[in-house]
């Protein structure tokens, strides 16, 4: 209960902060236009050249799938890695560890609070825009779509935080985690269906995306696919499995990390 009250307070403060300083919102909006917007136009051209179908997939499935990926990225959960790294490098970690709250859960709530305002605004406006411009595919009209989307979104958020927190905790050993972060981030980008939507994946890549934590952390992009109505429970269970595995690994690694920590004062 205490934890929920604390999270609630933290998120409220951060949302208020973002309301007053809309710089982040500007960057997120521009970033979504630069990446997703241009990609959608390019794919529109590609689909037009191919007579409206590529690999038996229609344009609006591809467009919504990519939009979900980029909208989810505006939540900026992945920034937890660098946030942990900065704390370790600056020595601020000492202050955080002495507080009567769990450091990792504090960081997780902080990330959610930092990104939720941009995420909600960009997602709602983007969805409305996309709905009016290209419409929605039939797969988004089935009854299970919305409830499973929410479920898989929740799982994706938890798994993303866990995977990137694992990268962040490596800072206790190697300090500069940027190279590891880049590799993990690009793996998530490829397997998550960013520039190349899941529906257009070759079979072997699709299997890797399905059974790796990197792909599982972006399962929201699968929700618009034709296969979702038959496979959704398998994918949600896979996501749950990776949450448990990543959670245990993070717990063990973080316990070791705390013992490893040496703060250089200053």
């Amino acid at each position, binding site marked *: 209960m205490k934890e929920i009250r604390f999270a609630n307070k933290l998120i409220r403060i951060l949302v208020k902060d973002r309301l007053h300083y809309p710089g982040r919102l500007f960057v997120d909006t521009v970033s979504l236009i630069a990446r997703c917007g241009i990609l959608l136009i390019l794919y529109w051209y590609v689909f037009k050249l191919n007579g409206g179908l590529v690999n038996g997939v229609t344009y609006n499935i591809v467009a919504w799938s990519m939009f979900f990926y980029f909208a989810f990225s505006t939540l900026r959960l992945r920034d937890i890695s660098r946030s942990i790294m900065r704390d370790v490098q600056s020595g601020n970690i000492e202050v955080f560890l002495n507080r009567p709250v769990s450091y990792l859960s504090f960081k997780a709530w902080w990330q959610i609070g930092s990104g939720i305002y941009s995420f909600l605004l960009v997602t709602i406006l983007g969805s409305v825009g996309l709905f009016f411009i290209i419409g929605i595919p039939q797969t988004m009209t089935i009854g299970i779509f919305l409830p499973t989307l929410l479920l898989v979104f929740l799982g994706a958020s938890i798994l993303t935080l866990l995977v990137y927190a694992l990268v962040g905790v490596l800072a206790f050993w190697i300090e500069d985690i940027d190279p590891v972060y880049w590799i993990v981030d*690009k793996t998530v980008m490829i397997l998550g269906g*960013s520039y*190349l939507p899941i529906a257009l994946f070759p079979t072997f890549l699709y299997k890797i995306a399905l059974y790796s934590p990197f792909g599982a952390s972006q399962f929201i992009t699968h929700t618009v696919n034709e296969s979702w109505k038959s496979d959704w429970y398998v994918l949600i269970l896979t996501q749950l499995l990776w949450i448990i595995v990543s959670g245990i690994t993070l717990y063990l690694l973080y316990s070791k990390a705390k013992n490893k920590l040496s703060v250089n004062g200053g």
Partner: protein
Amino acid sequence: MLKEIKFALYSIKKNIQSSAELRTSFLMNVIGMAINNTAFIFLWVFFVKSVGIIGGWTAIDIIGLQGFTAISYGIVLSGANGLRKIPNYVVTGSFDRFMLSPKNLILRIATSSFGASAIGDITFGIICIFVYCFLIHVSLYQILIAVVLLFLASLVFLSMTILISSVSFLFTDASSVHEGMFEIFLTPALFHGGAFQGVMRFVFTFLIPSLLIGTIPLEALKDVSLIKIVLMIVMAFFLFFLSIFLFNRSVRRYESSNFMTFGN
């Protein structure tokens, strides 16, 4: 001018030496960035495999595109990494020290920081260009064109970095605007060039010249197109002089915002 360039080269040398002191971190950054960049090749090669050849672009061209973009990005953001820090220099008031320096302002700022990871971009880019040249069996003439085009692409990238950094003097805290503009410029440069046709190609060649750092040089090299080479030369020098002009105009709007608060 020669003196200024000598000074800039000396600064870059010292910056490299300083970064190389932290050997493990330096090497990890270089290798990490090179691996990171291969992701784009994977993505667009799979794209070509899925949707087929678009605008005459094959999977091999993607390797060349990434090579051109990575090299121009790497050259500018390794040696002239300070340009990307201008918004931070302005907000914190540390821009004052550059204004007071007797050296050329842009050169002094540009060489004030070094991006170790950009060396990874250069390494990756060179490998890509070699692979590309080998795969398309380039002639000696094309190799010479490639060198010229790499220089021009880097000049475009440098000009755009200066141009985008100039907005730092127009806003109280321009870091968000700066970041957003850089994103808009860089992202399309990494996309499959063949898919940019018609209006999109015009916009991203002349208004936001992202295609000038990868797509257009690659097509100029592949087709040995004189028109595209001339376009590159004209645009590169036009953007360079325009960026210097606008930067110097923008600097006039700079007001010190140092944290010492003396003099009110």
